[in-house]
């Protein structure tokens, strides 16, 4: 359980880090919080000649509101995203989802950019990113580009990053005034990786839902938006019965793969439950607003 030999590179500026990455992109692995990468290195599922440590690079962490976007630096720790008053105010759905990521000792090191880059289909933050159509900012010595979360995640543990690019920021839309949100997951035990996740946000007009967004994770290779469920909510008042109905619709609209431990039927049933619970949470935050 010891990692194979590598050279640890610890630049201190963004420009230096991108230059180091550009030198030998295929031989260099980026290290953020290490909470997913280091286990893989210890088990030697990942070996690399060069490890590019982003922990000393200045200006890659921190959160700020810019216009209608909450800008989260890639090296922002999960724990900061969970507790920051700025995040809670601008994007409470993210703050709520962060509470479910592993344990406090994991959240003290793991980062928002790291979980996005890792692209685990059951991870909480990617599910929120897909639901809200977050933008992933990628930078390299060649320049900067932005991808919608739905285009960034291309498979389980796979993303659309080029080898010389680093994720530098994740942009979440600022919560529209009066909108309702909810996040629910099913995990066997507190802090464990969930089997499925669901994130929802509904804008409200005269007590009726508009612009509904629902994403589920763990039901396929990437988190996905559920268009049918979203249209089922449009123009209707959110109630317990509607939450139940949309949960059932969600279960019908996913086709999770069978696995030795979690059958397709079981996972589909969990999708029904978490979508319903996420909507019930949205209903509760609606009660608070009244």
């Amino acid at each position: 359980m010891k990692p194979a030999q590598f050279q640890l590179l610890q630049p201190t500026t963004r420009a230096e880090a991108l230059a180091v990455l550009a030198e030998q992109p295929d031989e260099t692995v980026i290290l953020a919080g290490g909470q997913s990468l280091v286990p893989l290195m210890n088990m030697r599922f990942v070996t690399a000649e060069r490890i590019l440590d982003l922990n000393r690079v200045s200006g890659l962490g921190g959160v700020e509101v810019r216009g209608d976007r909450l800008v989260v630096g890639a090296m922002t720790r999960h724990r900061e995203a969970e507790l920051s008053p700025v995040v809670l105010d601008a994007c409470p759905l993210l703050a709520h989802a962060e509470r479910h990521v592993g344990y406090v000792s994991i959240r003290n090191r793991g980062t928002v950019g790291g979980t996005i880059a890792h692209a685990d289909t059951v991870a909480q933050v990617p599910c929120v990113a897909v639901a809200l159509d977050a933008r992933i900012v990628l930078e390299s010595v060649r320049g900067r580009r932005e991808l919608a979360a739905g285009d960034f995640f291309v498979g389980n543990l796979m993303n659309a990053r080029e080898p010389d690019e680093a994720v530098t920021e994740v942009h979440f839309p600022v919560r529209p005034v009066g909108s309702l949100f909810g996040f629910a997951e099913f995990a066997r035990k507190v802090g464990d990786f969930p089997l499925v996740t669901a994130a929802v946000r509904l804008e409200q007009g005269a007590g009726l839902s508009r612009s509904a967004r629902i994403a589920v994770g763990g039901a396929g290779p990437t988190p996905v938006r559920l268009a049918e469920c979203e249209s089922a909510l449009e123009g209707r008042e959110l109630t317990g019965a509607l939450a139940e109905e949309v949960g059932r619709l969600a279960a019908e609209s996913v086709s999770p793969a069978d696995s030795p431990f979690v059958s397709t039927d079981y996972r589909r049933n969990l999708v029904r439950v978490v979508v319903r619970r996420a909507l019930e949470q949205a209903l509760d935050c609606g009660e608070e607003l009244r």
Partner: protein
Amino acid sequence: MREIEITVNGERRREAVEDRRLLLDFIREDLCLTGTHAGCEHGACGACTVLLDGQAVRSCLMFAAQADGSELTTIEGVGSYPDRLHPVQEGFWEEHGLQCGYCTPGMIMASIDLLAENPSPSDEEIRERLAGNICRCTGYVNIVRAVHHAAAAGREDQS
């Protein structure tokens, strides 16, 4: 090999480490502080929990070189038997919060981290916070009691 400088339990240490040296192995094998335990060595069990700049982290998921310039607290820096036990250690002693003791250093570090943030946690808050620390012996009930014991001692100190 590279030189790193770390403050370990209040004492400045300069050591040479390989880039791939895990912080856990650095603590156990280079500093010879074997109170920090190696369990799963891939982040799953919490036995290796230490405080880095005051925050609980898993020492098996970091490289020693990354801790250069930091302050590290291990179980040895917390308190010692017989007359300098930390209130959390007292709690584990009084409430029989351990059997084999393998998980104990990690449990104690995680509990100290919890109590620093929340001096009067509920059962649920304790269970949630310690969910990342696995114990194969106790069944956890006495561990929860131990943390309550320490919390009560902390409250007495305050008054």
